[in-house]
């Protein structure tokens, strides 16, 4: 039976090919499946793009072209940018850095060849966040990891920071947060106080991003690249759905995330983890593995872990599942801070990438959860409690402010406490998180006041005049609400009486 994709000499083709021969193949010797992209009959070594047998170089070309398309079509990196790549030692970030190096050297040679010498090329650096304090790694293991990272990324600036740097405002411990030993202690206590494993993982991810942002701001970077693959994003979509984060889900999965002081971009959004890991192995790119919170643990130990295992299981049956999940989730309307700034040459080809000035925030500004920065729905923002309305409240805010500006998921996983326990826990959060929560709280109060300003009574009124004013204000309010109501005759009556 002739197979369109490969030529056989009587052997089978394995599951990557569409022909139905089922004889077992010898592993050694030339694989009978040939690369469908190469014209000169090069044997395929893997199944890429879900179903196509490909050789190693075509696999790399396919990954690189997806990366470049994402960067160019969505305006993720411009020549004037100073790009910071967050690395973990794993294959995805390793490949991201290699690809950026390649793009940069090509841009550099174009710039050198150009006549006027004004062409700029983006600059590159990497950051590694050492989480040994939280992960309870032995010091030798943590040190070995840092040294390996420095070796792997020799040639470009490598920034290594410890996670407790989030307790300082400028990378160094601030006076308020104490010295380095006490910030490590605070970090450990904060994590111990979160009993839920999923909550711990989520908080670790957020503090890691805060640490990366700190480094980016101090060292003058203008973009942060996160090597999130389609696999990890699909797992995030499933996990976020189980955590009830449906409203804020679109914020985390777009190419650009502008919520942070230094915007975060995801150029590997269209690549799957499996292909990147394979490429790393074939190209002999060294990677290291650092244990996480749930390494070696049961898949059910956390929702994130479970979602990841689920995606892996789906992918085994049908390799296109990850892309399908990401594509489906991408249909949800994103937020204003996800709007991309696309160069004019690309705009006509992709009208969907236009700068979305409106989106969900036409009527109200986006308020973000104090802990995870997820956009908050107005129904999620709990009303002011007794403890915040009082004379004893100082300008630094308190735990109730923070709790009223947290999303339900964070309240459940990370900050479920009340009373004295909540007060103690509030003090364990980094200073920047507490300040952000107070600021969000007061901004929200201001915005709410501005919405009802017209209906508030002026302060100096008394007696009958007050009642008349109250009546008139109520009527005005009702009229505004009911001018197109199902009771137009009431409106007309009121209109005649009042005016």
């Amino acid at each position, binding site marked *: 039976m002739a197979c369109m994709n490969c030529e056989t000499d009587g052997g089978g083709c394995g599951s990557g090919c569409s022909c139905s021969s089922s004889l077992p*193949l010898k*592993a*050694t010797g030339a*694989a009978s499946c040939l690369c469908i992209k190469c014209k000169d009959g090069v044997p395929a070594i*893997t199944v890429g793009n879900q179903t196509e047998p490909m050789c190693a170089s075509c696999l790399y070309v396919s990954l690189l072209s997806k990366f470049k398309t994402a960067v160019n079509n969505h305006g993720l990196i411009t020549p004037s940018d100073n790009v910071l790549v967050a*690395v973990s030692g794993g294959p995805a970030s390793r490949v991201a850095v290699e690809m950026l190096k390649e793009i940069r050297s090509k841009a550099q040679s174009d710039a050198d060849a150009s006549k006027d010498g004004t062409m700029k090329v983006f600059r590159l650096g990497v950051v590694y966040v050492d989480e040994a304090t939280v992960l309870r790694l032995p010091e030798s293991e943590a040190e070995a990891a840092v040294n390996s990272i420095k070796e792997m990324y020799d040639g470009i600036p490598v920034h290594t920071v410890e996670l407790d740097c989030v307790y300082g405002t400028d990378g160094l411990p601030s006076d308020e947060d104490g010295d380095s030993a006490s910030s490590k202690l605070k970090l450990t206590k904060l994590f111990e106080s979160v009993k839920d494993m999923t909550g711990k993982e989520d908080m670790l991810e957020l503090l890691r991003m805060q640490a990366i942002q700190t480094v980016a701001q101090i060292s003058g970077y203008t973009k942060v690249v996160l090597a999130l693959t389609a696999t990890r994003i699909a797992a995030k979509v499933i996990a976020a759905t189980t955590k009830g984060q449906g409203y804020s889900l679109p914020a985390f999965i777009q190419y650009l995330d502008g919520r942070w002081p230094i915007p975060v971009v995801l150029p590997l959004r269209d690549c799957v983890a499996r292909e990147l890991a394979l490429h790393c192995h074939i190209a002999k790119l060294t990677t290291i*593995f650092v244990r996480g919170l749930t390494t*070696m643990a049961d898949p059910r130990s956390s929702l994130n872990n479970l979602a*990841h*295992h689920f995606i892996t299981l789906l992918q085994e049956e049908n390799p296109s599942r990850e892309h399908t999940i990401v594509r489906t989730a991408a249909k949800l309307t994103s937020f204003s801070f996800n709007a991309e700034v696309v160069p004019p040459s690309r705009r006509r080809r992709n009208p969907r990438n236009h700068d979305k000035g409106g989106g969900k925030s036409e009527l109200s500004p986006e308020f973000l959860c104090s802990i995870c920065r997820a956009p908050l729905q107005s129904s999620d923002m709990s009303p002011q409690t007794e403890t915040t309305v009082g004379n004893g409240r100082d300008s630094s805010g308190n735990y109730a402010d923070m709790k009223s500006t947290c999303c339900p998921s964070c309240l459940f996983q990370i900050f479920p406490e009340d009373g004295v326990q909540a007060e103690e826990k509030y003090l364990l959060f980094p200073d920047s998180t507490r300040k952000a929560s107070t600021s969000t709280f007061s901004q929200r109060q201001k915005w709410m006041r501005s919405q009802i300003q017209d209906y508030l009574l002026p302060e100096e009124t008394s007696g009958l005049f007050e009642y008349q004013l109250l009546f008139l204000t109520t009527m005005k309010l009702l009229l505004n609400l009911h001018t197109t109501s199902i009771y137009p005759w009431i409106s007309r009556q009121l209109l005649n009486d009042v005016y």
Partner: protein
Amino acid sequence: MILTDKEEESWGGLELLFGSVKIHEVDVPPPEGETKIRNNLLKERPEMFLKEKSVRPGVLVLINDCDWELCGMTEAVLEEKDSVVFISTLHGG
């Protein structure tokens, strides 16, 4: 019975299950292949690597740097000096 010398490598964190040693040289008589791995090499948590008669989903298997999907997966016949690489894709970049 054909004695095969296989080199096994594991990456992506899998080496933790094999006592943190990444490369093993193994003499594997064919029918005993799987049991040998399970009894001798896997130091802990066998269920994280093996699932029934095959490897767990999320573990990429390369036979001589070629994806085992193209070689017949569990039906592939191995020969002397073959190199088998296991890569875990569960913890990505």
